[in-house]
């Protein structure tokens, strides 16, 4: 069995300097919070109520010891028969049968029926010691599990004897040098019903199942660990096909390396709105919007774009099944099925109410660790609201985001905004951890709805501040040209209407211009004709005037000739002649 590696080792983990010798459990998260496993050669008590997973935890410790650390183990079962145990662990992916056959594990089922037993005098548990000793020696066991030794109390008389015998048993186990795990039923006031934590004082682990909003979450806590530091929180864990998974997210510091690489959103014009290059590759992106605004289509575009870049994508959907998403996205020309078949896209679809909050996070982390994607999509993240209160959701989402960032994964959340709520506030209050926030909204006017998109924020890049309309076409999302006219920003039919109006207005203006030009021409020609007429008139007058002048001159000359003639006739003196000559020269 190969367990996926998530590098979550706390940085502050102290080096093993003179630490208590420890036995690794092989359950990675548990080894981290215990700083290296359970106390070697000592006894650990795992207590918890019915169905909390204590038997499986103990069993996995034993199985992994046998498989990974070459430490054979003895499982002494007081409650379940060997066959039941074999069947149970097959369901979590272990081959107990095979390990028994190869003498790595011995299972000894101790059957006690209180109705068969009569006590008649003093007794001790030597037979149990002998049985256990024989089993340990038969395979050279290093690990022992006693599950659940407390059932002795309900089946055997004389608790005082039992207490003394248990104390002796634990001492004996320590002498044997085996690492023991003892399970105990949780009590009401005490950790275990019969208070056996009093005898097992080295390490006590409590496992619980809590129900929040009718969803169960498993938690594990180290109550005490003598001689060792340990994580003290309530750590969530899951039991699934790979056994127990417990991933403590210890990173609370914001010191992940940042990337300057940009990745496309899959929609060219959206990239253009984000300064031309799309998102930063390690950013947290949120696409929020009211129902029916096309969030999933945007997310699918993003997934498609990542797959085109040959990057792996994990798509968590809490509302639609993968087939449904694939079918629906086909209608906008996105063939996600192709990527699924190619192994680039993993779609993980489950109802949000299926698990508790911690479980969801854990399962997500597990899948991510297994699959090492470059892009993680979660749609819609607001679903978490249904199973936990807002502060818990915020805490979990933040943890998740921190982890994703530290792994350099682009994370895209879909976020559903109820229509009546102001769309700029995310209902789960995670707006502060979002790097790029794309808001989708529907605009209703003149009896129709149209979809609009704008970039509410996008840290570290210049971005468009315009509300743009977009259309869902059979080849994907198309962001339309923005209409900014005299009537403000318009979308949909109104936008088309505006455009038509604008066109009509343009035509009218053109007509007017033409009209004016015509008028002008007209006026010009009138003017020209007038000028011509005036010229003609002037010419006529000029001609007549010239004629008159000529006539006058002729008359004047005639007059002068006549006068001279008259003078000659009347013997005019020289002076008169002089005057006559002068006149003539002019």
């Amino acid at each position, binding site marked *: 069995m190969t367990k996926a590696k998530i590098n979550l080792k706390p940085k502050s983990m102290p080096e093993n300097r003179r630490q208590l010798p420890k036995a690794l459990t092989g359950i990675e998260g548990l080894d981290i919070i215990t700083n290296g496993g359970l106390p070697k050669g000592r006894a650990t008590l795992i207590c918890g109520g019915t169905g909390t997973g204590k038997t499986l935890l103990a069993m996995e410790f034993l199985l992994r010891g046998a498989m990974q650390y070459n430490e054979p183990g003895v499982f002494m079962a007081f409650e379940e028969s060997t066959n039941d145990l074999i069947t149970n662990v097959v369901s979590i992916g272990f081959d107990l049968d095979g390990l028994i056959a190869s003498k790595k594990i011995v299972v000894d089922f101790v059957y006690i029926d209180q109705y*068969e037993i009569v006590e008649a*005098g003093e*007794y001790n548990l030597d*037979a*149990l010691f*002998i*049985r256990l000793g024989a089993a340990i020696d038969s395979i050279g066991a290093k690990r022992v599990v006693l599950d659940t030794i407390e059932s002795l109390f309900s089946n055997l008389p004389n608790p005082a004897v039992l207490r003394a015998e248990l104390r002796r048993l634990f001492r004996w186990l320590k002498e044997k040098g085996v690492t023991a795990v003892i399970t105990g039923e949780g009590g009401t006031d005490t950790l275990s019903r019969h208070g056996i934590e009093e005898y097992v004082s080295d390490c006590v682990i409590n496992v619980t199942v809590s129900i929040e909003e009718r969803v169960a979450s498993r938690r594990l806590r180290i109550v005490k660990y003598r001689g060792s530091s340990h994580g003290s929180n309530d750590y969530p864990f899951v039991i699934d096909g790979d056994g127990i998974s417990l991933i403590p997210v210890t990173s609370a510091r914001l010191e992940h390396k940042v990337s300057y690489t940009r990745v496309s959103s899959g929609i060219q014009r959206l990239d253009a709105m984000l300064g031309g290059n799309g998102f930063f590759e390690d950013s947290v992106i949120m696409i929020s919007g009211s129902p029916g605004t096309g969030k999933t289509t945007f997310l699918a575009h993003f997934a498609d774009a990542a797959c085109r870049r040959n990057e792996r994508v994990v798509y968590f959907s809490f509302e639609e099944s993968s087939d449904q998403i694939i079918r629906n996205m086909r209608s906008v020309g996105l063939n996600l099925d192709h990527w699924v078949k190619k192994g680039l896209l993993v779609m993980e679809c489950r109802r949000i109410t299926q698990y508790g909050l911690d479980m969801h996070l854990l399962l997500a982390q597990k899948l991510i660790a297994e699959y090492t994607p470059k892009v993680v999509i979660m749609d819609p993240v607001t679903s978490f609201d249904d199973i936990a209160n807002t502060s818990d959701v915020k805490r979990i989402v933040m943890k998740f985001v921190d982890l994703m960032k530290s792994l350099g994964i682009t994370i895209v959340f879909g976020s559903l905004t109820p229509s009546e709520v102001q769309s700029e506030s995310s209902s789960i209050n995670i707006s502060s951890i979002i790097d790029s926030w794309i808001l989708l909204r529907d605009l209703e006017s003149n009896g129709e709805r149209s979809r609009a998109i704008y970039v509410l924020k996008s840290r570290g890049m210049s971005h468009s501040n315009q509300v743009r309309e977009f259309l869902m076409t059979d080849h994907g999302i198309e962001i339309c040209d923005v209409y900014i006219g005299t009537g403000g920003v318009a979308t949909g039919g109104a936008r088309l209407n505006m455009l038509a109006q604008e066109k009509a207005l343009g035509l009218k203006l053109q007509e007017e211009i033409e009209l004016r030009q015509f008028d002008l021409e007209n006026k010009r020609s009138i003017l020209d004709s007038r000028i011509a007429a005036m010229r003609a008139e002037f010419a006529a007058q000029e001609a007549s005037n010239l004629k008159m002048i000529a006539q006058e001159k002729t008359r004047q000359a005639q007059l002068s000739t006549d006068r001279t003639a008259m003078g000659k006739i009347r013997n005019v003196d020289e002076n008169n002649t002089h005057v006559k000559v002068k006149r003539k020269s002019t």
Partner: protein
Amino acid sequence: MSDKPIDLRVHKKTGPEDDPSKKWILRLYVAGSTIHSMTAIANIKKICEEKLDGRYVLEVIDLYQQPHLAAGDQIIAIPTLIRELPPPLRRIIGDLSDTEKVLVGLDLKPL
């Protein structure tokens, strides 16, 4: 049990007059020669002699010598007396010093 040990074996022949269905098979598990063990052996022998004269087989098994037998009969306490026959199976734990309880446990005496 196929490989019956022959340690401390007490065998009484059944008389011809006895109904074979009334034959008793008892096994006593002990661990070494501790006080508990010795007391138990003495007590059960006495009870058998008195109550089941000639109708029983008593086998005493020392788990220190044959530890693998403990799992087979689901023994955890020492001493344990098992009534194999007649059915149903009975277990009596302790050093059998409380004779009343032993008799009740073995159905040799009504409550």
